[in-house]
């Protein structure tokens, strides 16, 4: 069972590195999804480990939240793209000192 968790950790880390290094907002979003999915994998693995379904329910809710997040996030990306003609997260950096 540990190998599932390790895989989950690896995928999560790759996703986080992606968030940190990619600049295309859509790809960043994909990496966020990758992180969420890695978490889901851990949830489901632990559900099997402990023999109850609460982990699966958690994974289910993660998916629901991810869906909602994607909808809003992509809408935001669209809006930004419409005004700035760019999907780079680095271009949206006015909110600073």
């Amino acid at each position, binding site marked *: 069972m540990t190998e599932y968790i390790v895989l989950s950790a690896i995928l999560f880390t790759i996703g*986080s590195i992606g*968030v*940190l*290094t990619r*600049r295309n907002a859509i790809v*960043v979003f994909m990496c966020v999804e990758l992180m969420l999915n890695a978490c889901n994998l851990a949830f489901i693995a632990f559900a099997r480990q402990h023999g109850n379904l609460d982990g699966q329910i958690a994974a289910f809710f993660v998916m629901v939240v991810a869906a909602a997040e994607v909808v809003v996030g992509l809408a935001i990306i669209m809006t930004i793209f419409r005004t700035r003609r760019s999907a780079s*997260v*680095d271009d*949206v*950096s*006015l*909110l*600073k*000192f």
Partner: protein
Amino acid sequence: MNALTALTLKASETTIPVVAPTDADGPFTLLWLIIALPLLGAAVLLLGGRYTDKWGHLLGTATSAMSFVISLVLFVSLLGRDEGERQISQHLYDWIDAGGLHIGLDLLYDPLSALFLLLITGVGSLIHVYSIGYMAHDPRRRRFFAYLNLFVAAMLMLILSENYVGLFLGWEGVGLASYLLIGFWQHKPSAAAAAKKAFVINRVGDMGLGLAIFLMIVTFGTTSFSGISALSGGATETTLNWVGVLLLVGACGKSAQVPLQAWLLDAMEGPTPVSALIHAATMVTAGVYLITRSNFVFELAPAAQTAVIIVATVTLLWGAIIGCAKDDIKKGLAGSTMSQIGYMMLGAGLGVAGYAFAIFHLLTHGFFKANMFLGAGSVMHAMDDDVDMRHYGALNKMLPVTFLTFAMGYLAIIGVPPFAGFWSKDKIIETALVESPIVGICALLGAGITGFYMTRMMLMTFFTDKRWGSTDSGGDVHPHESPKVMTIPLIVLAALSVLGGLMLAGNWIVDWLSPVVGHAEHHEPPLPVIVITLITVAVVAAGVALAWFLVGKQEVPRVAPADVSIATKAARADLYGDAINEGLVVTPGRATVRSLTAGDRSIVDGLFTGGTTVLAGTGELLRRLQNGYVRSYALGILGGALLLVLTLVVVN
């Protein structure tokens, strides 16, 4: 009252009378009117503004004169009463009513206040009359009379109050009036500064009086004379000593005694009638009144009494020495005033034996010093407001009335028999000799110096060569006698200076005041009385002769010579009174304030500004982290998550 006298407490060798007044009836119900009249005058003149310019001086004089008339009526009524019934109080209203503290606005009319009433309203009215002439050309004469009336009202409040709080009200009132009148010609920077100086130094004294009142409230729970005189026997001597010393501080401030003497000489910047009324005859003697009135405290506080004697002795010599070197006629008289108040304080400090003589000297001094100040004003009037005696000389022919009245005052002050000053000063010196030979000899010496400086003033002003009107002085002075409105008060006061001694006839004044200050057992002086009197007269004569040889026989230079002895220089500089104040109080105070402000700036403010600077600097560094790149923030989150996991791993 006879029954009440039985209640008086036995202290040392004398009895201290308890103040136990009866309620006012008959003419005594008019007591409040004495204060109210000048107060009304002041209110009308101050609020009425320029509409009262035409008749303001007449109203001011009239209110003062009416107060005098009522005082006279009351005095005669009091004379008609038995000795035991001569204390009358009038309750006007409850002033302060807080918890256990009840202070009413009560008036007390007894032999002591009766004499003061006559002096203040009498001399005050004369000076009002004189001022009509003296201030005739001043555009703000109406305001001057308003202030004078305010002063008279406050002074009457001071001496008529039945408790220390009411006395304090009057005390501050006369302080205010004094401030306003010293600085009456406020366009002169020196006058404005003098007024400020008088006010500030008086605050020091007032603080003493205020603390004394607080201590009384704490100790006795009351501030009325009747309450404290009945309770003072129950208080510890230490407490009473403190009360006495604090009262003395108050008296020093108001009466220009060392070490709070510095303001009086500068106070001469005010108009001369003010100097005569406030800074010679009445207000400055309030300290003597305070100590005499507080006899029930001082009789039980020997240390405080000793302090009074020391202060008085130092002051009477101090003032006399200053008086010797002054060329300004008013400042010379001011030094003399200090010295004479020193005599009064000495009398008051000597206890039951001296109170009556202190008050006696106060009254005679009120007459002759007012007389001399007004005379000096008349001379200045004649000399175009020149106050330097070195510019006078040989004025006796020009100003015959002023000369003669001034001479009466002169003879009175140096103590030539049978003029008023002789009787009063002689009695104080005699009592002092009984009490302590050293103090007595100092007082005797003071009398000699008085003879010297007054003779010097007399000679420089009215005799010697004339030093005015000559070409090199550049002055075009034509001395002329003052109008009648000014000379008549002079004549009246001169008459009083001559005849004031009659009050001692048959020991009248001592008996008159004994219900207030107690009756002293008679002590035989170390020498026969007649010998002491002869010695006093001889010492005065020596002073006069010295002045005759040093001033009268020699040429008086128009400009004060610079190469003089150290003693003269010191006396010219008021015995370095200002320098002492400067060195002991002002400079350290200024240094303290400066260091405190510096500390406030650097430490207190620095704590705040330094704190903000550090915070701002930190913020300046930290804001670099806020670069707007969302990925940078995400890196922070990942770093945080790493730390979290690391902690978990390490802890497990």
